[in-house]
């Protein structure tokens, strides 16, 4: 069996939560990968940035906001696209060097809003890459 421990897995989510199961599947795969010893980094892109919204309260579905928070507690790094977040009203100012993210009172603390270049860095560093909800 191939030992994947310590390898990096990058996941990109392009669709919003609850409209489809992409966010749900991505979170479950990320959790499994962390359990198996992968380093997991996630990039929220396009409508995928809505997964960072604070106060999600789905009655029947898996809570994506809570799942992302749990993933960061397990060691995942989660970033979201600055351009997409700005377009959807999440950004409330210039990049804050101290916070190391764009400021947003609407986004959960687990997700840091960064420029698209941080996704390119993830792709450059990663061993495996999976995309959800984009094609």
């Amino acid at each position, binding site marked *: 069996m191939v030992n994947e421990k310590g390898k990096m897995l990058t996941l990109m989510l392009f669709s919003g939560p609850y409209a489809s199961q992409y966010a749900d599947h991505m979170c479950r795969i990320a959790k499994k990968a962390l359990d198996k010893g992968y380093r997991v980094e996630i990039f929220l892109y*396009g409508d995928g940035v809505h997964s960072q919204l604070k106060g999600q309260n789905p009655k029947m579905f898996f809570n994506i906001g809570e799942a992302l928070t749990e993933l960061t507690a397990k060691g995942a790094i989660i970033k979201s696209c600055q351009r*997409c977040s700005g377009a959807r009203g999440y950004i409330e100012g210039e990049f804050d060097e101290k916070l190391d993210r764009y400021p947003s009172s609407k986004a959960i603390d687990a997700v840091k809003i960064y420029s*698209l*270049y941080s*996704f*390119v860095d993830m*792709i450059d560093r990663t061993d495996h*890459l999976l995309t959800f909800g*984009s*094609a």
Partner: protein
Amino acid sequence: MTIMPIIVQITKPPFGHENTFAGLYVASASLSKGLDVIVILMGDGVYVAEKGQIDPQKNIFLPPTETQLNDIVDLGGRVIVDKNALYERGIEYEKLIAGVEVKEMKEIQNVILDHGDKVVAF
């Protein structure tokens, strides 16, 4: 060690979805960071390579994908267009922007198999 390029696969048309813009931004950002990039246009994504698009910024307030794709070619990115998808849509080769490569699906599959460690699909 061979450095694998980033493959950006686009299957959606230029202006009906955000996918194309998102994919082209990833390609441009990767090139500007010095990484190798291959953009593969398949299905309705082949419309992205059509030249002579009326300035969408002026008319429908969307980014001009033709300019974005030209920039990618100018920055050294490879752009591959699916030959069969062009044929199905009646798009002639002379309607495509300069610098793109038209390839059969089998050849595209080989590109992905040879270089496809990092495929970002849009």
